[in-house]
């Protein structure tokens, strides 16, 4: 099974650089603006895109991403509409990998089998589900693999060498290393410590390792990209979006460029990184 994610990493390896992965919350601040932002991301320099599925109770997210999810829900976003957004994006772009990220309950209620068919058809490549550790692989991970979707697992500073093999066993696409113990957007990642952690994970797997949580600036993105196969930025982009909204939380003419400009600057950082770790 090869997905757009595998193809993109192969292509980046040929170019000798790391991936820049961006996050946006589907439907934030409204479904149309969110799709407009999504469409500009590849041009602005995103190599891969994580799309957040809004949920009322995001237990691993900090205030910025919580608020983004609530804005999206208030604007009427649903999982069905998130899949429509993916279909809208795929009309013009058949190569940029899209990964849905979020929590299990909306998928469970949608129906796992139906969701996997609809997601694959819409053009989704992978899933990151925060509250599904390997202990619950029967729920979604194994069915997703069968359906041809990558199930991307989070590894964290608390995942020790003894536990890593279990975490990596059914992981595909890439490994997402959570650089800090904490919620999204809370602390800065130390690139040196992260480098050691990535090296540790790579002793257990051939999969690319991307690093996220706590990366906010082009310099930080560059430092991480020198130590990993990809750098993920989420909260900083969500904050840029929020900063462009009017007093009622609605999109303005500045909203799409605010996100695109920051993505471009961060992409410069990632592309300025020395040869990524292998």
């Amino acid at each position, binding site marked *: 099974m090869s997905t757009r994610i595998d193809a993109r990493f192969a292509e980046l390896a040929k170019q000798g650089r790391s991936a820049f992965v961006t996050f946006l919350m589907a439907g934030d601040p409204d479904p149309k603006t969110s799709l407009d932002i999504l469409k500009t991301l590849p041009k602005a320099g995103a190599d891969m895109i994580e799309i957040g599925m809004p949920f*009322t*109770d995001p237990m691993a997210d900090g205030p910025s991403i919580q608020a983004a999810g609530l804005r999206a829900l208030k604007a009427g976003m649903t999982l069905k509409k998130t899949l429509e957004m993916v279909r809208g994006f795929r009309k013009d772009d058949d190569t940029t990998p899209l990964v849905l990220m979020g929590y299990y309950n*909306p998928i469970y*209620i949608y129906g796992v089998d139906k969701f996997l068919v609809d997601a694959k058809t819409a053009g989704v490549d992978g899933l990151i589900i925060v509250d599904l550790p390997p202990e619950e692989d029967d729920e979604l991970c194994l069915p997703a693999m069968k359906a041809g979707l990558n199930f991307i697992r989070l590894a964290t500073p608390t*995942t*020790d060498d003894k536990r890593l093999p279990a975490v990596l066993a059914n992981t595909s696409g890439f490994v997402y290393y959570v650089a800090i113990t904490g919620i999204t957007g809370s602390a800065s990642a130390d690139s040196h410590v992260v480098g050691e952690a990535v090296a540790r994970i790579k002793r257990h797997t051939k999969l690319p390792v991307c690093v996220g949580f706590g990366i906010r600036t082009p310099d930080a993105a560059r430092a991480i990209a020198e130590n990993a196969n990809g750098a993920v930025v989420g909260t900083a982009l969500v904050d840029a979006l929020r900063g462009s909204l009017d007093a009622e939380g609605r999109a303005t003419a500045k909203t799409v460029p605010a996100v695109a400009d920051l993505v471009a600057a961060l992409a410069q950082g990632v592309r300025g990184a020395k040869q990524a770790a292998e």
Partner: protein
Amino acid sequence: MNPGQPNSLPNSFRTGPDERGHFGNFGGRFVAETLMPLILDLEKAYVAAKADPSFAAEMKGFLKHYVGRPSPLYFAERLTEHLGGAKVYFKREELNHTGSHKVNNVLGQIMVARRMGKKRIIAETGAGQHGVATATLCARFGLECIVYMGAVDVARQAPNVFRMEMLGAKVIPVQSGTRTLKDAMNEALRDWVTNVHNTFYCIGTIAGPHPYPMMVRDFQCVIGDETREQMQEAEGRLPDSLVACIGGGSNAMGLFHPFLDDPSVEIFGVEAAGHGLTQLHAASIAGGRAGVLHGNRTYLLMDDDGQIQDAHSISAGLDYPGIGPEHSWLYENGRVTYLSATDDEALAAFQLLSRLEGIIPALESAHAIAKVVELAPKRPRDHLMVVNLSGRGDKDIPQVAEILKGEKK
């Protein structure tokens, strides 16, 4: 029971959960990877404690001399006369130190935390009873205590906030989401994800990822174990029925569990029906369906997109859109019958009990009394009914006074 499906029933209702934390289809370990090693460690520590006679001995000493156990099993003579049916007994958990059953569980978890060498305790609280119990035991054992409480609940349960602070705890008002108990739990989980090395999360009910539903249940089973002995002493036999209120459901499970394999004992859980089941309520079984939240699969209130809905109950302690996973299992296999009581019914029961028995119950426990008022008259006079009086109503006096003042106008 369920005669059409003889093979679907387990030989015993008391053997769960399985090694993965499942009660049938419910329970499990739906947590972020960062927390997974922590809950595996906790499970190991709890299993070791359970097997250690010195742990049980220490618990027993504190339950007796600090908590004040055993709590009495009291024959409510005037309520019984008033209802004209079953003989009604109260299991008086409201007489425990800190005023509710919550302390049974907190004592157990704090003992486990001490064995694990954890110095920082975090907890979520709704009405503040679990927060107060946690703050109390942290004071007793010299541990740092942080309590997360929804900003809405901080405002409506001010006396308990003051009590917690008096006991040396730090109360953090939670401003995210709906600013009630479920958000307090989200925030406690976020704290735990951040402070993984020194922190113990003391969950207040039989919910959350495995091993919490099992561990909290085990600590609360002292309620049912005592009831069994005390009823034997008082009447020379088992009770015929049990009634308890359910938010997450820990006081109910503590009473029910030791009787699950006694088929002659009818068991009733009472959820909070708020303004009524067609309006805003907190009855997850009556008005919800199976979903995944806060680390377990269980009955939840949610919309068609799987988004969690706001619960409503007059009682802050029942104001939660979920229920412990073992209750979901006992509902589906039919062993326990789940009823619900509205705000108004609970309020009426609150007043009735105050006047007939001189006991002001917590609004939570008043939900159970409200259904006793319906069930007891339909049962014969030799029927023995035990209701769990899980907490005392002092904390609710300002709120009830406000409501009754409004009604008189």
